């Protein structure tokens, strides 16, 4: 009731605002424990601001996230609020909603919250992988992606968890020794257990009850969002000259997750 009243008050404001309202109520439920402003607070906040002010702040958020994405380290909501949103925190949900829309419509990217507990965002390419594949521009490739691919593949093919010993041994066969400086990657151990972990491509956690201490690798939250298991399996089939379907378990997993992520992305488009 009261909401409808308020809505009629601000009917002059753009359509997107009303749309966002319904989304915000969803977000709010998940976020109840945090100091996220309520829908009514957002409405009241928006009434005090001009459309230009909100647009300006949205643009700042978009730029901040784009710049932060250069290092591929997830953006923390706390940092976003502290450095960019500042006094606009009452209308935070509206601004992040608009930023998401901008990323989707302007940049072909998707802003995803990978960690609903600590509120971290990453940017993911939202374009169809198959259409994006023949890149018109000869982009300089990042060799680290090759390394990451190997690691993620081994984890995936080994059922999701891999002891670090197996990982280091496999990498050693590829002339990448964690104990030695690699001419391409430098301090390989650091790249893998620190950089990839901070970027949320990998999880590197201690195995409980091991003596001496052992660690294991898993996929990080960013990989879940960004990496296609079906594509890995396909490449694997090419490499090992096997039918991807012969890895029954992996095939099933790849295609159950792939279909769900595809469905979600098609929804957005």
């Amino acid at each position, binding site marked *: 009731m009261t909401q409808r009243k308020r809505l009629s008050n601000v009917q002059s404001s753009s359509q997107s605002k009303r749309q966002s309202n319904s989304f915000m109520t969803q977000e709010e439920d998940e976020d109840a424990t945090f100091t996220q402003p309520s829908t009514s607070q957002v409405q009241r906040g928006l009434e005090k601001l001009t459309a230009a002010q909100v647009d300006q702040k949205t643009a700042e958020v978009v730029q901040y996230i*784009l*710049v932060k*994405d*250069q290092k*591929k380290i997830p953006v923390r909501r706390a940092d976003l609020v502290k450095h960019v949103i500042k006094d606009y925190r009452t209308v935070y949900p509206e601004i992040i909603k608009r930023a998401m829309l901008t990323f989707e419509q302007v*940049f072909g*990217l998707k802003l995803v919250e990978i960690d609903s507990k600590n509120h971290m965002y990453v*940017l*993911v*390419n*939202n374009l169809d*992988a198959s259409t994006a*594949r023949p*890149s018109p521009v000869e*982009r300089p*490739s*990042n*060799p*680290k*992606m*090759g*390394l*990451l*691919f*190997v690691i*993620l*593949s*081994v984890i995936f*093919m*080994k*059922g999701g968890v891999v002891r670090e*010993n*197996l990982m280091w*041994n*496999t990498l*050693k*066969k*590829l*002339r990448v*020794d964690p104990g030695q400086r690699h001419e*391409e*990657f430098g301090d390989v151990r650091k790249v893998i257990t620190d950089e990839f972990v901070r970027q949320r491509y990998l999880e590197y956690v201690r195995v409980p009850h091991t003596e*001496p201490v052992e660690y294991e690798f898993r996929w990080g939250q960013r990989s879940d*969002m*960004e*990496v*296609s298991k079906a*594509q*890995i399996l396909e*490449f*694997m089939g090419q*490499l*090992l000259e*096997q039918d991807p379907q*012969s*890895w*029954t*378990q*992996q*095939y099933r997993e790849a295609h159950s997750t792939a279909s769900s992520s595809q469905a979600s992305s098609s929804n957005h488009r």
Partner: protein
Amino acid sequence: MRKARAGGDDEAVRQNGSSSRRRTDQHPGDGEDHDSSSGGVQDDDDDNDLGLRREIRSKYRDLINSVQQNREDMLSPSNNKLTEVLEEANKLFKDVRQAREAALDAQLLVVATDLGKEKASQLFSEGSAFDPSAFAEHLLSFMGLNRLEDEDDEPPNGCASDGYLPKDAWHRLARRAECCFRTAPSFHYMMGSFYTEPPPPKQRIERQRKAPSKEAKRIMPTQLKKMEESHQEATEKEVERILGYLKSYYQDDPSPISYYEFVIDPNSFSRTVENIFHTSFLIRDGLARLKLDSDKLPCIEPVEEEEVEAAGSFSRKQCIVSISPKIWRELIDVFEIKETIIQPPETQSE
């Protein structure tokens, strides 16, 4: 890597050799002990026994180490290394007498069980098993490994050392693997990004702190100097000014001037006091002299410049002039002073 593994293998071989040798050496003795008295082994020959204990422990440790280091090889389904290790351990266990050795045996069992568990998990996986070594092999081929002449057929040892990867090996793999990633292309500024250097804010703080302190330092001494200068100068100027009046008055009428007529300002008592004060400098410097006229009233006259030097030799007399507003008023009445001879300084009239 190959070195490490090769070393490990060598050790294992040496170990096997030595252990078997020892066993043959020691078995007869051991057997005798067992035959005679099973309980008194330790007491019978202590030295030999201590050495044996130590050796058993070290063999156990070697075995545990070799299992941990060669874990991945032992895991591969193609070999029977785990069984070999267990057999070896069984042989060692024959000689185990003390808790310490038994603890090591138990530790080995933990490691072996862990391995067994992992081996079992390989069996459970549906469809084709995934062999990381084979994966690595194929990746090397994909990355354009240039194999050199002596290509070992033995996969793990051979490929780790032979051949070299082209420079763009990882780039090649990255390009092919790109399609697996839906990575957002990172954007960069064409002119490079604005680099927020930490130093500038620090400098700014320093500047802000320094600037006021410098000014404060500068202001304090100049103020002091000015005060002193102006004070001295003012007195000197005033004295000279009064001398000027005295001289011009004397030129107009070259007779001694009545001291009080000269000094008194009928409009201001304080000016009068100042005049008396400044005139006293003229007397002190010998530029003017005071004397009493026929009526025993003090009169003043300037000293000619030639006389100034001569005057220096005369003994000087001091006298104190006292004046009060009352006396000042009386003097004005008595001398009928209408105007002041010494005009107030310009700064005041201004």
